């Protein structure tokens, strides 16, 4: 499982925020476009791409995209 690919998938859930904004260190809750619908989309993306069912709390407790990646990786 590759971090950059995960960041790209994460970025795909956004329409307004430019893809260049997203890095492993991005504090995603602070992005203007972040919303609970995007949070739900991220959970669905992880299920579809990686076959892992995240909980809402996993997303909430992650600060950066890499934090979330590490949770997904740990369960892969």
């Amino acid at each position, binding site marked *: 499982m590759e971090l950059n690919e995960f960041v790209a998938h994460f970025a795909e859930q956004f329409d307004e925020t430019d893809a260049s904004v997203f890095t492993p260190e991005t504090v995603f809750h602070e992005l203007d476009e972040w919303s609970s*619908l995007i949070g739900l989309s991220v959970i669905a993306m992880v299920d579809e791409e990686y076959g892992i069912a995240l909980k809402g709390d996993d997303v909430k407790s992650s600060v950066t995209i890499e934090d979330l990646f590490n949770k997904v990786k740990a369960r892969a």
Partner: protein
Amino acid sequence: MYNPFSLRGKTILITGASSGIGRSTAVECSRLGARCVITGRNAERLQQTMDALVGEGHLQVIADLAITEEIDSLVSGIPAIDGLVNNAGVGFNKPISFVSQSDLERVFQANTFAPMLLTKAILRKKKLNKQGSIVFTSSVSAFGSNYGRSVYGASKSAIMAYMHYCARELAEKQIRVNAVHPAMTETPLIYSGTLTEEDRQKDMAQYPLKRYAKPEEIAYAIIYLLSDAASWTTGTSLIVDGGLSLL
């Protein structure tokens, strides 16, 4: 004692009785004098419901209603009933663009096809007494709009439509058919994943009554529709939502 909502002398079949609204409905039905036939998939949790029932003569049957043979053996093995509570269901929360065919099949199987096939089997085997009552647990999501709920809402809307057709067709036999439409209720189903405690608190705050339902508050609505107090009520959707649909 005078009580038009009494279920004394009635036998009621309740699906999804191993937790949540189904368990509460079974317990409250037993308190109002019904003999309950409870069904669910999980033996341990179904036994917990069984242990909570008041009075004698209740039956429990473990069955997976996704499997037609299990529906058939459930129906063959039970006595004639006066009420059927088609309550078993699954939750589902996913944005539209991620919904897969297998998601659709799983949710519609549990929330739509299983109650349709159970209703059919009960009628075909003539297990529902005249003057009987069928209640479906639909949802406020049947009237639609919250994001992530497209598939769940469509499955619950379909069962509402089916309820209307049943009400019309079964009126010939004096069988009444209705639905309850709960909003968010404190059951394991709403703690199953995608929502955080913070999401729930925020969501709760928007309800005019400022909280989610307790399972028994939905059970009482189901019981009204099962009881003789509702003897002139058929084809109705009873919305029990803490005022949510006022918004």
